[in-house]
């Protein structure tokens, strides 16, 4: 084997290591620097096949009175604003063609909107959360605690919430889970 080929091989073997280390570093950087919002979780149906390992849920946004009037599923953005007298951010959906008003939103997230059906309120899955086609949030939890958390989510709406790091490109990553406002510790 030639010396040059061995050098090339060494570089190529380092490539996946560097690639994965970059992903880890990037995620650490995002979690350290991005602003964080807390959104309540609500149950979804059907449950996931990997139930017991992943908490499957949907984000329960605090919609403004005129915030979720769209009748069709669509790509778009939500503008999150702080309202007086409430510690929860208020959400308003805008179709993708609309530009969020400058400076008036505490945070803006792009994603997929679904109108409310029956007693199930409107939904919005930010890009970066819920996968490309699943449109469901999956949070890895210890198996021993999965059932308790799932029951809690179903029977006491608002008890579970997630911290979302809002990135500059209007996507979100899950930073952590909260139970009754307290960060969930594995």
């Amino acid at each position, binding site marked *: 084997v030639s010396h040059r080929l061995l050098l090339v091989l060494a570089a190529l073997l380092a490539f996946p*290591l560097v690639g994965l280390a970059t992903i880890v570093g990037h995620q650490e950087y995002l979690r350290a620097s991005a602003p964080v919002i807390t959104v309540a979780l609500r149950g979804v149906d059907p449950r996931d096949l990997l139930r017991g390992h992943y908490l499957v849920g949907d984000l329960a946004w605090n919609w403004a009175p005129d915030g979720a009037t769209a009748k069709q599923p669509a790509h778009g953005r939500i503008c999150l604003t702080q309202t007086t007298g409430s510690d929860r951010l208020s959400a308003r959906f805008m179709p993708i063609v609309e530009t969020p008003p400058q400076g008036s939103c505490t945070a803006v997230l792009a994603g997929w909107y679904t109108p409310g059906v029956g007693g199930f309120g409107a939904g919005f899955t930010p890009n970066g959360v819920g996968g490309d086609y699943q449109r469901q949030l999956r949070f890895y939890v210890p198996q021993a605690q999965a059932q308790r958390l799932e029951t809690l989510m179903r029977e006491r709406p608002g008890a579970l919430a997630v911290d979302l790091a809002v990135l500059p490109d209007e996507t979100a990553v899950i930073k952590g889970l909260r139970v009754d406002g307290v960060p969930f510790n594995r």
Partner: protein
Amino acid sequence: MIAERYLRRWTTAGLIDAAAAARISEWERAHARPLGLWAMAGIGAIAIGLGVMAVVGANWEEIPPWLKLGVCFVLQIVLAGAVWHAASRGWVWTRELAALLLFALVLAGIALIGQVYQLQSAPWRAMVLWLGLSTPFMAVATRTVLSGIVWGVAAAVTWFSAWDPLSDALRTVIEGAGPGSWYDAWPVWYTLTFLLAPLMVAVGGLRRLWPGARGQGQAILAVALLGGVVAASAVVSFDVGSHDRFSLLRLAAIVVLATALAAWAAFASSDDSQPWRVPAILGATTLVWLIGMSLVRVADLGPHSLELTLRAAVFVAFWAFLAWLASRDGRRGWLAVCVTVIGLRLLIVYFEAIGGLTATGLALIGGGVLLIALAAVGWTVVRRLAPPAPAAVGAGS
């Protein structure tokens, strides 16, 4: 022992004398491996591995994320070092095994990072990232057929895991509009399944250009070609119909373009005396696929029997062509496979045409006679392709 039985058989037939039989028997005894002990040791090693995995799995929640990631990176560094060391020393199987383990560990690392950081994305993105990070070192470090096939399977799994975005892309290209222009799953399924074959043939062809990995490229190409043959045969076999009027011409243009690319790669990388063989099979395969897709597109081609006959005729003609190529190249095994496939298809024709108990009985009798006749013809042809008898070899030497 099986070898002893064959030695007695060959000695009785006069192919070898008793002295040669004794020498062979002695040599086999001297080189015999304690397979039972090897198997026991292997089972022990597997048990240890599974035990370690079970212990780690049971305590997975207790292991802090940084430790999981740290161990994963250390293992990757160790394996990467092993690949490099084995490559520098020329230890073929150590290098291949370490490279395959590293290949698997990169995927495990991606899954681990996804779990630790709660990353939410479709599985195909992780698979594409995996292939993107691993293919370069696999291409340089590995040479064996095994590694090539493992990589090919990984590529195929990635292709099918990306089914949704590929379907959307295909629909966008065909209809010139956004995703979801037409929703019929069969044309998409048939096209995406078939497209994988020319793409992998092209990969195998290009891989053959590197002399050290020629056998690996040849294996990828052969498996891909076989996949294409099976996919085209399936398209022309099943009458699924179609509810949407998709653009067959645009679909055909994509497939023909991919086939032409693959045929060129296979032709350019060939060093045997018949460089046209793979392009010819690819061309015939694409033609059969096109006929099958045309039948899917028209959905209702006059009387049902006409479509059944057409499908069967195209199928049989295709496999007869493959049989002719196999006989031309003296490949007895493949010739036997082709004859068997044709026989089974003709038997299915009988069942497709039956109605009532009498007709069923007649169909079974007719199909049976046909199969026996085909087997007789196939046997005759296969015998003609038999290698020269030992006497002839001896006479020539």
